[in-house]
C-alpha cells in the first residue's frame, strides 16, 4: 500500500514536472508546478515528515505560486490589445536539444552515483510519531541561531522588495 502510494505520487510529480518543461503556456506551467509541489508534499508524508509536508503546502502553494502567477500576469504583454484575442501567456523554449542533453547527462551522473553508492543510512528505520514537537524543540534550543538569522533575512527581504516595488509605483505615476 505504501509502495503504491509512493510510486503514484512520485509519478505524478515527475509527470507534472515534464509538463512544465514541454508546455509553452506559462500559466499551465505554474499549475503543473502546483501539482508537483503537492506530489512532493505527499512524498514528505511518506518519508515521515508531516510538519514539512504541511509547511510545503502552505509556503509553496499558498505563497510562492500565488507570487509567481502574479508575476506572470504583471509581465505579460499581449501582442494584440483586444479583449476578444486569446490571452494565453506563451513562452518559447530555446535550445531544447542542448538543454535536454545537459539535463540527461546530469541525471545519468546523479543516478549512477545513487545506484552504486552504499549508503550507511539505507536500511530499516523505526516508525515514529509526529515530528512537530521535535522540530519545535530543536528550533528553540540547538538551532536557535539559524532561526534568528532566518528572521533577520526575512525582514531584509521584506524591506528590499518593498523598496523595489515602491520606487516602481512612483516612477510609473510621474
Amino acid at each position, binding site marked *: 500500500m505504501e509502495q503504491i502510494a509512493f510510486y503514484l505520487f512520485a509519478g505524478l510529480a515527475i509527470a507534472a514536472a515534464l509538463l512544465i518543461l514541454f508546455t509553452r503556456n506559462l500559466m499551465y506551467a505554474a499549475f503543473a508546478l502546483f501539482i508537483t509541489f503537492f506530489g512532493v508534499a505527499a512524498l514528505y508524508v511518506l*518519508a515521515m515528515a508531516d510538519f514539512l509536508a504541511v*509547511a510545503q503546502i502552505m*509556503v509553496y502553494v499558498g505563497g510562492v505560486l500565488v507570487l*509567481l502567477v502574479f508575476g506572470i500576469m504583471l*509581465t505579460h504583454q499581449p501582442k494584440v490589445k483586444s479583449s476578444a484575442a486569446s490571452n494565453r501567456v506563451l513562452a518559447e523554449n530555446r535550445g531544447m536539444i542542448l*538543454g535536454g542533453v545537459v*539535463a540527461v547527462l546530469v541525471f545519468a551522473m546523479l543516478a549512477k552515483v545513487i545506484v552504486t553508492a552504499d549508503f550507511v543510512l539505507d536500511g530499516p*528505520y523505526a516508525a515514529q510519531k509526529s*515530528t512537530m514537537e521535535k522540530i519545535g524543540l530543536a528550533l528553540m534550543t540547538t538551532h536557535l541561531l539559524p532561526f534568528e538569522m532566518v528572521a533577520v533575512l526575512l525582514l531584509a527581504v521584506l524591506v528590499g522588495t518593498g523598496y523595489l516595488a515602491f520606487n516602481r509605483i512612483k*516612477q510609473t505615476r510621474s
Partner: protein
Amino acid sequence: MIPVTHFLLVGCTLFSIGLAVAVTKKNAIGVLLGLELMLNAVNLNLVAFSRHDPAHLQGQLFALFVMVVAVCEVAIALAIILRVFDHFKTVDPDQINRLKG
C-alpha cells in the same frame, strides 16, 4: 518500506527536469519555476535521509531553512524582474543584454 535510493532517484529526476526548465525557458519567470523545482528536489533528498535519523531530524530542519531561503529568493527575484520589465519591456533573458540603463 521504501528504500532511500528510490527517494533519491525521484529527487534527481526532478532536479534534472528543473535544470532543463531553467536552461530552456525564454521567460525569466519560467526560469524561476525551474529553480523552485530544483530546490524542491534537493529538499526531498534531505527529508529522505532524515527519516533514518529520528532522534535529531537534522535533515528536516535543514530542509525547513532551505524552504525559507527559497521563498526569499523568489520574492526578490520577482521584484527585480518587475523592475527589469519596466525598463526593457520584456522578460526574455536573451534580450536583456545591456548593463547601462
